[in-house]
């Protein structure tokens, strides 16, 4: 799985962008998006997903069920 940003809730504050350890977050039309190919849910980097932890609006950064759970490859 990966995280995704609910565009209708995103304030475009950019707090998440520099926190992402995978540089998976970028701005598009005044809101931010997560590249699911790059997102690792912060597994292996931090105890909690950084975008979720820093986002000022609850339930804006959510799990995107379309992608399988990220697994650390050896």
């Amino acid at each position, binding site marked *: 799985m990966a995280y995704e940003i609910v565009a209708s*809730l995103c304030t475009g*504050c*950019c*707090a998440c962008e520099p*926190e992402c350890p995978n540089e998976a977050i970028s701005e598009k039309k005044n809101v931010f998006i997560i590249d699911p190919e790059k997102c690792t849910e912060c597994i292996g980097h*931090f105890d909690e997903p*950084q975008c979720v*932890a820093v986002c*000022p*609006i609850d339930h804006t950064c959510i799990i995107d069920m379309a992608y399988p759970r990220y697994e650390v490859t050896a």
Partner: protein
Amino acid sequence: MQSTIASVSTQEVKPLEQLLEKIADHKGCGTSSEGGKASCGSSGGPADMAPEVWEKVKNHPCYSEEAHHHYARMHVAVAPACNIQCNYCNRKYDCANESRPGVVSEKLTPEQASKKVLAVASAIPQMTVLGIAGPGDPLANPAKTFKTFELIAKTAPDIKLCLSTNGLALPDHVDTIKGFNVDHVTITINMVDPEIGQHIYPWIFWKNKRLTGIEAARILTERQMLGLEMLTAAGVLCKINSVMIPGINDKHLVEVNKAVKSRGAFLHNIMPLISAPEHGTVFGLTGQRGPTAQELKALQDSCEGDMNMMRHCRQCRADAVGLLGEDRSAEFTTEKIDEMSEVVYDAATRKAYQELVEAERSEKVAAKEAAMADLDVTDIKIMIAVATKGQGRVNEHFGHATEFQIYEVGSNGSKFIGHRRVDLYCQGGFGEEEALPSVVNAINDCHAVFVAKIGGCPRDELKAAGIDPVDRFANEFIEESAITYFKEYFARVCAREIVHVDRGDADIRQGAYTAAA
């Protein structure tokens, strides 16, 4: 409206506890405090300030009440990210008519901000200060904040740079702040006790974790105190902003005042909580009320001593432009700035204009001193609301005022003690009937209102509410006029033509201008 005959006590300043209880009697809410300390007021003039400090603040509208009548500031919204959550802030909400911190219409890149500063500086020669105040936290966006400073320092070196922060990241950036010759930093400190802090801050983002509760508040207060100590050690003037939240930190702000004073803070700005439900903040939704005008004044009075209290803060937007009481940000949207091909920075015109401003300032101070020469000694104090467009003069029409400046006048002379926002009474020449009661509520604690001009209807209604509408000081200096009025008032009290009464309390206006032009 409740009025009482003025007491003739010799104790001039009452402890906060007494003052708050007196107000609570009016309002039916229980508030008490650990007491305060007697002090005499300070308007922050040269008489009670070291010359080198006055040199730093005399053209900074947010650090000098006297300067704010003459000089303008602007904020550029280059810092949208924040590293903490406050219960009085909702980042989702934005409205062009709103005037609150954390609200902006558009965010800027450092390059756009730099161009905007030059455009504003050319159009408003009395704009002397560029601040970065969000809409998030400047130091949670250090690259953007410092890039903006770098660009402006290069093209407009006479403009003062300042910033306003929650303090969490402050200790990491003190050297950089100093490196940009930033002389003024504001830290928002609402508590020095994590037990209280947990009710104000739901979380902080710290070392890659979201921390909550007492732990979050403890780290925040430690970082704020450390940052303040580092800044004052580095010779940077620090203003402390505190939001007064009745029942949560109102009594505690006396402790905050002592804590920041002991660490060298220069100015303390206690502001009323803004918590209209439509803003969608936690406090707005839980029904947490803000203080009344007299509750706020009582707390400010009790903290005033050897530390200056700021009473002229307008709690402005993170993209505000102009004098503190006005907002000209709509004239300088990104669209309009982008249309300008090249902005030439005209330092010579700015300097010439500012010299005129200085001449008028000196005239104003001299006029006030002359008026004070033959003031009688009395315990009576009155409050006067003033409609002004700036320059320290009574120069606004009653119906065009979006705020009134409030002065307290007594034996010690006149003192600016606050301002009240109101809805425009006059809309395109027609007085709106429903707007007047809100104006009366906003200045209900005043004995008189000074205006450049006023129509017949509002004049009669103000009189009926017990507020004297005065237009004979049109275009005169405010403080000189206020002292003159007080002398006449006191003479009439002595002659038993009128009986002096306290006027009671007033509302602090919340939310957007519902009748904005």
